[in-house]
C-alpha cells in the first residue's frame, strides 16, 4: 500500500530525510518512533502530498506522490501534528467544509457519523476557537476519517488527550487499522508497542531500526535479565548466585530485597538459581525475566552519534547490528 524507496528531502542545505526505504501493507499499523527533528513529520508530509521529495520514489496505493498527487490525496486521510483548524467555524461546519472539499455524497450524514466515532456529537455546534486541545485533536482525527481513506497518516494523534481519551483513540485506530493502512508517529513508546504491528525507529533522517516491537526487543537483548526477590538478607545470596553456571553478573536493585542478574546469551539459568536459593535456606518470593523496554531500545539506538572520522566508533556498533 505504501512504498517508499530511497526517499530524500533537503531543506536548503539541511538534509531532513536521508534515503529511507520502507513499506506498509494494507491493514498494517506502522509506527514511526523518533526524537524531535528525526524526520518523522517531514516524511509524513511527503506521503500525504503536502510537499514533494527531493529524490526517491513514494507510492501510495500504486500512485506516485508527485505524478498522481491528486489520487494520492484522495486515498490519504491526514492529521498534521499542529492540528490546524479554523477557529471561526463550528465543529460541524468545519467537517462539512472538508467533506465538501472531498466531494462526499451525503456529507451531513457522514459528518454525523465521524462525530459519533470520535465522541464529539454533543459539541458539534461549538466554535472551534472555544474547544479544548483534546477536542481539537478529535476533530482533526474526525477530519482524517471523513472519506474512509485507504491510508491514514497520523502525526502524533494522542498528544494532548487525557488517559481515557487516549484509550478511546487507540481503540479507534486499531479498529480502523483492520481494514486500512495506518501510519502513525509517536513519542509514546508504550503506544507503539500496544497498537503497532511494526515499528520504524528514525533518527536524524535515517531509519535506525525496523521490526515488530517483540522482535526488536528480542534482537537487542542478547542476554536475559532476571529479577530475583527473596525473604531475608539478599546480600548473603550474592556469592551463592554467582556460583550458579551461566550467570554473567549480579547486582542489587534498590529496595533491599531484590537482585538482578544477567545470564550469558542463550542460557536458561533460572532453574539453577531457584535451586541455589532454596538450598541456601532462603524463601524464594519472585523470579521472573525482565524484558528490555522499547524505551531502552529507543534510547540506545537514538543516543549514538554516527561515528566521525577522528572519533572512536565505540557503541555505535549496536545500531549496525540490526541491519
Amino acid at each position, binding site marked *: 500500500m505504501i512504498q517508499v524507496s530511497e526517499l530524500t528531502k533537503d*531543506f536548503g542545505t539541511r538534509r531532513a530525510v536521508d534515503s529511507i526505504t520502507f513499506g506498509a501493507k494494507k491493514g498494517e499499523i506502522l509506527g514511526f518512533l523518533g526524537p524531535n527533528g528525526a524526520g518523522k513529520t517531514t516524511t509524513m*508530509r511527503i506521503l*500525504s*502530498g*503536502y*510537499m*514533494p521529495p527531493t529524490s526517491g520514489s513514494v507510492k501510495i496505493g500504486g500512485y506516485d506522490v508527485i505524478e498522481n498527487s*491528486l489520487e494520492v*490525496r*484522495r486515498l*490519504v486521510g*491526514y492529521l*498534521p501534528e*499542529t492540528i*490546524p*483548524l*479554523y477557529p*471561526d*467555524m463550528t465543529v460541524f461546519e468545519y467537517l462539512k*467544509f*472538508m467533506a*465538501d*472539499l*472531498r*466531494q462526499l455524497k451525503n456529507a451531513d450524514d457522514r459528518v454525523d457519523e465521524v462525530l459519533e466515532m470520535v465522541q464529539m456529537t454533543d459539541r458539534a455546534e461549538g466554535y472551534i476557537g472555544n474547544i479544548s486541545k483534546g477536542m481539537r485533536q478529535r476533530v482533526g482525527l474526525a*477530519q482524517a476519517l471523513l472519506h474512509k481513506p485507504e491510508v491514514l497518516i497520523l502525526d502524533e494523534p494522542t498528544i494532548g488527550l487525557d488517559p481515557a481519551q487516549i484509550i478511546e483513540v487507540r481503540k479507534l485506530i486499531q479498529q480502523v487499522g483492520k481494514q486500512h493502512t495506518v501510519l502513525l508517529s509517536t513519542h509514546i513508546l508504550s503506544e507503539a508497542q500496544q497498537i503497532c504491528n511494526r515499528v520504524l525507529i528514525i533518527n536524524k533522517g535515517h531509519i535506525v531500526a525496523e521490526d515488530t516491537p517483540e522482535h526488536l526487543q528480542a534482537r537487542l537483548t542478547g542476554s536475559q535479565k532476571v529479577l530475583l526477590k527473596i525473604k531475608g538478607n539478599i546480600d548473603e545470596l550474592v556469592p551463592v548466585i554467582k556460583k550458579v553456571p551461566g550467570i554473567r553478573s549480579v547486582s542489587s536493585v534498590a529496595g533491599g530485597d531484590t537482585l538482578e542478574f544477567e545470564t550469558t546469551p542463550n542460557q536458561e539459568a533460572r532453574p539453577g538459581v531457584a535451586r541455589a536459593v532454596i538450598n541456601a535456606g532462603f524463601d524464594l518470593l519472585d523470579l521472573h525475566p525482565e524484558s528490555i523496554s522499547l524505551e531502552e531500545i529507543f534510547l540506545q539506538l537514538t543516543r549514538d552519534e554516527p561515528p566521525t572520522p577522528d572519533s572512536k566508533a565505540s557503541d555505535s556498533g549496536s545500531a549496525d547490528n540490526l541491519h
Partner: protein
Amino acid sequence: MRNIWTIAKRELKAYFISPIAYVLIFMIMLTLSIFFFIDIYYAVNTQGYIPDIKRTLELLVFPLFFLAIPAITMRTMAEENRMGTIELLLTAPVRDWELVIGKWLGSVLFFMIIIAITLIYPLVLNPMISPGVDIGLLASGYLGIILLMFAMCAIGVFISTLFSNLIAALIVSLIVILVLWIVGVPGQLLTNSLGSFLSFLSFSDHYYNTFLTGILDLKDVVFYLTFTAMGLFFGTISVEVKRWK
C-alpha cells in the same frame, strides 16, 4: 469545479463572521452617503448644477475600493499560511488553481454585494433629475468598476500567497496597486515610447477615461481581464512553488 465554489462559499461566510466585513461596508456606505448627500444639497442650492452618478462611482473606485480590496484580500492566503491550515488545503484533493480561484471568487462576491448595495444611489437619484440617470453611463461605469475590482482582487490574492503576515500582505498589495494606479503620471510626462507604454498600463486611466465616460471599449475590458488572469496565474504558481521549498 465544485471545489472552487466550496472554497468561495467558506471565504464569504468567514468575512461575515468577523467584524471586518461589517466595518468595511459601513465605512464605504457612510462615505458614499455623505458625499451623495452633499452633492444633492449643493444641487438644490445651486442654479444649473445637476448631480451626477459619476461622483459616486469615482469615489467608490478611489479611495474606497483602493483601500478596501487589499484589506479584504490580505487574509485570503496569508491567513492560511499563518494558521497552518494551508497544510489541510494542500493535502486535500484540491488543485492549486482551484484554491486560488476559489479564494479570489470569495472576495469578488463580497465586493459584488457592496456594489449591489451602492445601486441605491442611482435608484434614489433617478427620479430627482430630469431626464433621469444616464443608463448607458451607469452601465459602463459599473461594468468598469466590476472589472477593476476583478483585477485588484486577483492581484491582492496573489500577493497574499507570498506572505504569512497579514500586514505585510496588506502593505505590499497597497503599494503594488498604487504603482499601477499612478503609473500613468510619469507616462504622460515622458513623450517617448516608454511613456506611452507606462500610460497604457495605468489602472486609473483605463477606467476614468473610458468606462466612466460611457465608452465601452473592448481593449479596456481585455486590460482588466488580463491583469485578473495574471494575478490568478501567478498566485497559483506561488502556491506550487511553496510546496517545493
